């Protein structure tokens, strides 16, 4: 049933609230990056490019960018490799447990991030599950350091991305036609060959979209790197928070946040282009 055009007014209250909690803050963020910090570190209202110049000339910015991109690429690829078999299984199975398994697969999305990080501390810590197995099996003499470093952050981040990857893959598997694989099988192709020549090429669009989506999520993840990195892992996300809350250097924090956002928009543009081609 189509309603008259004046129904549009119903969107006004929600629009007004979003204008205050979304449009205005984002404009304000852009404005802030053109202010300066004075000699005492206090913010000085201005219209200058001083902060942007400082940010882009600092080699630390490049290092943070590189760290974030490498970590996100590793975690996203790990999530893809782990999520693919599960997503394929869920897509194909006609088991009556399918709904339950799918719910378990995305439950980590709904479990508080701090709780999940704590779980990884208990699994990977010096006296955690992995180290007690390694020590009691006599494989190592000293606990292996698996948290408060890059390894811990990569593992935790991989797990936190997996539900999103599973959903993205399952959504993209739509064009995966079972009869094509059966045809390949009846023509004598062994399972591995069928996978490489039929299943994998057909699911390539889903893989690309899932990878880009999770990469963007990984680039802006904060809690996992902060808590599993123990202050030894320096990323764009952790530095934005440091600048804003610890150093109270708002113009620089705003500029670094916008810099990160522009980086992400470039990836999203690629995402959009690929999505259009896949559709």
């Amino acid at each position, binding site marked *: *049933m*189509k*309603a008259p055009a004046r*129904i*549009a007014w119903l*969107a006004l*209250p*929600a*629009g007004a*609230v*979003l204008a205050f*909690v*979304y449009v*205005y*803050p*984002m404009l304000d*963020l852009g404005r*802030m990056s053109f202010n300066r910090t004075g000699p005492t570190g206090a913010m000085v209202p201005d219209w200058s490019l001083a902060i942007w110049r400082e940010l882009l000339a600092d080699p630390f910015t490049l290092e943070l960018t590189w760290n974030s991109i490498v970590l996100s690429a590793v975690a996203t690829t790990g999530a893809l490799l782990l*999520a693919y*078999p*599960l997503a394929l*299984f869920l897509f*194909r199975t006609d088991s009556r447990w399918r709904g339950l398994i*799918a719910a*378990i*697969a995305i*439950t980590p999305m*709904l*479990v*508080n991030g*701090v*709780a999940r*990080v*704590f*779980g*990884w501390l*208990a*699994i990977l*810590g010096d*006296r*955690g*599950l992995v180290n*007690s197995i390694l020590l009691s099996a006599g494989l190592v003499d000293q606990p292996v350091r698996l948290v408060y470093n890059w390894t811990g952050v990569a593992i935790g981040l991989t*797990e936190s991305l*997996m*539900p999103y990857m599973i*959903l993205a893959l399952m959504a993209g598997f739509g064009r995966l036609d079972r009869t094509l694989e*059966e045809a390949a*099988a009846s023509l004598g192709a*062994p*399972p591995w060959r069928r*996978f490489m020549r039929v299943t994998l090429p057909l699911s390539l669009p889903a893989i690309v979209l899932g990878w880009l989506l999770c990469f963007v999520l990984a680039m*802006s993840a904060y*809690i996992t790197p902060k*808590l599993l990195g123990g202050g030894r892992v320096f990323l764009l996300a952790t530095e*934005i*928070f440091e600048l*804003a*809350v610890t150093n109270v250097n708002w113009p620089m924090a705003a500029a670094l946040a916008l810099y990160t956002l522009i980086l992400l928009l470039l990836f*999203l543009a690629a995402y959009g282009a690929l999505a259009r081609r896949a559709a």
Partner: protein
Amino acid sequence: MNTGAGASRSLAFAAAGVIGLLLAPVVVVVVISFSADSFIVFPPSGWSLRWYERLLSHRPLMAGLQLSATVAAFVAVLSLILGLPAALALARGNFPGREALRAFFLAPLLLPTLVLGLALLLAFQPFGLIATLPGLVLAHLTVTLPFVVRMMATNFATLPDDLEAAAATLGAPPLRVFFRVTLPLAAPGLAASGALAFLLSFDETVISLFVSGPRASTLPVEMVRYVEGRTDPMIAALSTVLVCGTLAVAVAVERMIGLTRAVGR
């Protein structure tokens, strides 16, 4: 097919392994919450309920729990009150600029909460909204309102409209059709949206880290502070309670509309 059985069995094994990996942190948290040790030791050397007892008398975490529940309740109710009419306009309206309006409502979901949180900190500070109940509620609406609008717009669009047409044909005025036909039909989706908005707000960590302060900190913020300072099983006890709560809500939502559909895009 003869060759298919082996391949699908190995796929099932791989899927089971991945499920195990996804569940591992949650299972470990639940187990360690009953530990008697003072540090994170897994497997624990003894069992007790002491961390649950300690949790009940831990002031900052209990205050955080209370604040988070209050914020989430306000956020869920406001998201529904504001989101429902907007979703109706998007789903039923036929006006110029509707697609632009839809894009506007969904845009905040595309932004990282890290950037949103920083923007909210800078914008709210001059208004004295940082570390206040209204400030936290408004900040969380940035995420929950678009979410509810998206979910309810889909919900309204998929409702069968022949009942509404029938009611209108029989002479019911539009407002009456809405309250007597549309709203009851949409009720399960509405309840599910409200529950998920509550959960989203209750679990929101990054935005809260920016707009919380010593005067008012939500539960996830207090949890981050606690884990940064110490590592003992108290957070595991708290997490176990939270996981049970989340599970209850997730099961309820699954019953109402199907969880995978609710969180999927």
